């Protein structure tokens, strides 16, 4: 009786082992088909293999939608270009040989790299559920985690809970999304980078503030591939300032000036003294109130923000388009090592002036007229 039971158990165990072996083989086969380096392929665990496979299939479907049309359009343009220059009609793509294709490939890769470098960020493709279907491989530079570690996971696992609602709102496929409305928001994400920029692990992750911009790509069928294409830029805490066309300013938490560097005089005409205590909301074009409010809120909630482009009024008349990068500076209390240091919680802004003075004779705000009389 007992021996019987033992025998049955052994059989079932063997069967299980065989099943597992077969399964492992299929998994291995699947992982080898993934476009990854062999060393990475070998170390993938089963759920990761599935996640990455899913990403691959989804991206393929998605790109068919994007490049399909683009390929046609660029194809058409190429044909026209060929004809313009009077060259022989070589027949689109088919006539080209492997070498050309390879050069194109390399060129495309360089172009992408330049783009990503200018954007100073990485690309992320999010499904409507928040799954990170694809991330560009430079994500490791900014987040410390590699592309393969993150792909297929859900973004809500890596972002600050207070930002989840905002992210959800942005993922929703609303009516305006169909019309191609742009998405622009700030969120906090786990970054596993040390101060020196080396990768650490998720255990010692810190929050990194990311500025995300992008568009939705809505696929009618299969609808599960509708997604959001975002470029994510970490907001740096240090800035390379240009010697002209930028100025720094410090504000109290309600956005009143507490300090401003003198370059503002050249750019906007205000003296630094007259700005102290003034609210930034007074100095800007009313139509940009929402933009500034959003920026202010992001600062209060997430400690860093980048405004979109908004207009700052120039002393005496007119305005300039500017863009501000801001951060909340934690307060400094006098300590033993620095007994004199005292700095309250404040906001530091680096503002880039983008345009020249527009409509210099136009006085839109009360301040601009007052100065005319005061001069």
């Amino acid at each position, binding site marked *: 009786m007992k021996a019987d039971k033992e025998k049955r158990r052994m059989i079932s165990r063997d069967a299980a082992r065989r099943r597992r072996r077969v399964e492992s083989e299929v998994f291995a086969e699947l992982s080898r088909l993934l476009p990854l380096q062999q060393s990475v392929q070998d170390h993938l665990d089963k759920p990761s293999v599935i996640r990455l496979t899913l990403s691959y299939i989804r991206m393929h479907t998605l790109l068919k939608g994007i*490049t399909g049309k683009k390929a046609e359009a660029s194809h058409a343009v190429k044909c026209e270009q060929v004809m313009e220059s009077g060259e022989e009609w070589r027949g689109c793509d088919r006539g080209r040989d492997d070498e050309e294709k390879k050069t194109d490939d390399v060129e495309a890769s360089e172009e992408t790299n330049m*783009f990503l470098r200018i954007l100073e960020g990485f690309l992320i493709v999010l499904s409507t559920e928040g799954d990170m279907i694809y991330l560009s491989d430079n994500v490791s530079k900014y987040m410390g985690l590699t592309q393969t570690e993150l792909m297929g996971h859900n973004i809500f696992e890596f972002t600050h809970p*207070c930002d989840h609602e905002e992210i959800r709102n942005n993922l929703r496929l609303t009516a305006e999304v169909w019309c191609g409305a742009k998405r622009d928001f700030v969120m906090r994400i786990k970054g596993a980078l040390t101060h020196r920029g080396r990768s650490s692990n*998720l255990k010692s992750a810190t929050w990194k503030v990311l500025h995300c911009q992008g568009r939705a790509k809505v696929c009618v069928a299969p609808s599960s591939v509708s997604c959001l294409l975002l470029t994510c830029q970490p907001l740096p805490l240090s800035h390379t300032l240009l010697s002209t066309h930028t100025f720094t300013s410090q504000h109290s938490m309600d956005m009143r000036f507490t300090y401003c560097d003198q370059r503002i005089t050249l750019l906007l005409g205000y003296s630094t003294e007259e700005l102290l205590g003034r609210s930034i909301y007074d100095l800007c074009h009313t139509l940009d109130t929402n933009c500034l409010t959003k920026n202010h809120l992001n600062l209060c909630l997430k400690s860093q923000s980048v405004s979109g482009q908004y207009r700052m009024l120039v002393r005496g008349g007119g305005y300039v388009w500017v863009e501000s990068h801001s951060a909340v500076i934690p307060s400094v209390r006098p300590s033993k090592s620095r007994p004199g240091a005292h700095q*309250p919680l404040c906001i530091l802004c680096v503002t880039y002036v983008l345009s020249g003075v527009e409509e210099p004779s136009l006085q839109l705000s009360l301040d601009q007229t007052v100065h005319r009389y005061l001069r």
Partner: protein
Amino acid sequence: MSARNAAAGGGDRARGEPAEDVLVEENQSGSVSLPSLMTPSSAACMSLSMEMPRKRKGSLDNQDTKSSSIPDADMEDIQNRSDGEDQNVKIKCFREPHSQIEKRRRDKMNNLIDELSAMIPTCNPMSRKLDKLTVLRMAVQHLKSLKGSASSFSEANFKPSFLPNEELKHLVLKAADGFLFVVGCDRGKIVFVSESVTKILNYSRAELIGQSLFDYIHPKDMGKVKEQLSASELYPRERLIDAKTGLQVQADLPVSAARLCSGARRSFFCRMKYNKIFIKVEEKEFQASTSKKKESQKYCTVHCTGYMRSWPTSHLEMDGDGEPDKQDSSYYSCLVAVGRIHSHSSPQVNGEVRVKPIEFITRFAMDGKFTFVDQRATTILGYLPQELLGTSCYEYFHQDDLPHLADKHRKVLRSKDKIETDCYKFKTKFGSFVTLQSQWFSFVNPWTKEVEYIVSTNTVISYDPGRTSRSEVKSELSSSSKTSEEDGNKSLQVILGISTTPGAMIYAGSIGTQIANELLDFNRMNSSSSSGSISPFSLPQDKCPQTHNQISNNMPNGGATDMEIPGKSSSEDEPQGAAFSGGESLMVENSQLDLDSVVGPGLSSLSNDEAAMAVIMSLLETDTNLGEAVDFEEMHWSS
């Protein structure tokens, strides 16, 4: 155990310790790579096997079961570990029963399999659910078919990218929404431009490459662009702002090849030509290109962001002889940038017929005085902005409309909503009236919660009020104008509650002031109960607006009507020490972004602990702020 504590603390991520929760479960996912967890060389793999079993946050609340029973026999079937040692480690560290952990792992795997089967075309038509192995095998087939169609050369590369490069490029372009261009700094020659330029500027790549950028820039912007390209900016004086102290640290960097390549950032607007004519493969195209100069050019504002970059000329094919010995000429400096259309800018009008605008924006101080007037107002009202600035809006409202507008004014100061006025008449410079309808809302500073000003979006309903049809005018207007006509002043008194001696002339200009004063009094009375979130660090700001307000009041108003009173009201000041939270917290629909509504009551979940501290401190210091309040006596209008 520390791990358990970490797990317990995992739910409270707001503290900024995000990572511990990840570590807890993941060792349970009986994965093949478990052994590799122990090897330090595969740090990447460690995180790979760390996956959250569920996608919902706060998923780590299964800490209640305390049984630490050794897993029973059924575990063996599911176990896939080659290293039994791990199991022991896990049992010690985690109190959760293995069966639960395993269940979660299985569920997760099943979910993934389901998702996979949904994505594979061959699996879809199957009515019954397929088993795991079949789905996997079909996935293999599917991937093979996908790879077959796209001949990707990336496999030959040392480092294959997940997506084929061409497709990735398209993806990036779509996300970035702009075109890439590289121009030489010395002469502005366009060295490279991406295909997407066609979509944006309507020029083909061939047309642009090799041309000078300056041929495509608005003449007035050429100087600015030259400045941006100038080599003297190539060596940035890098100023780092230390986020800890907020201080600037200057560092003049030595000029070296490495430094040049790291690039100074550039960001500027410029107007670029765009081609109206779509290039068709016809004879006409040649005509089009030559006649471009004759036609009036269309420009669009492009926002260019990028960085400076240098390439050693030895690497490039240059026209001249690039001697690598010479310092300067051995580097070819370029601006590498992305150009995006700036949507906010007003379109360039080149001889187009101007359509009369029907909307303009104004800003009022709390007492109704204009502090900002959009230039579109001039075409509509006849006044230049500076003629209106500093005067009270009530001076321009038709007498019949005063009651209802005053009412709305009161409402908007106490509400976070957007308030719609009825149609009303506004006096133009020429003495006639236009019918407007406005949407008002009080702009509240997100930090201090105080009203900074009122924003008004004004729409023209009719230029000739006489012809206004009944349907346009809101019903209340006609009825109110009838009743108030007989006893104009008296009804004003009743409505506004102005406590002056009966019979005194009520000047329209004072209405706004009175309303603002009312609010101040209201707030002053309620200030002890209201919670202010004024930063304790705000500078004494009452002096500034007060002085400039006085001056503005002394200004002569252009186009003055006899209702104008140059009062000495300084009620523009925001009420100090009295936050505007009030008892009326409304709305379902928050037209204004608000800290509380976003974060929830209490700002304790701010990631910045210091910010939270500051708020708490400010709550405590509200009373002291009251002491610094402006003398209220000064603020009432006195005839």
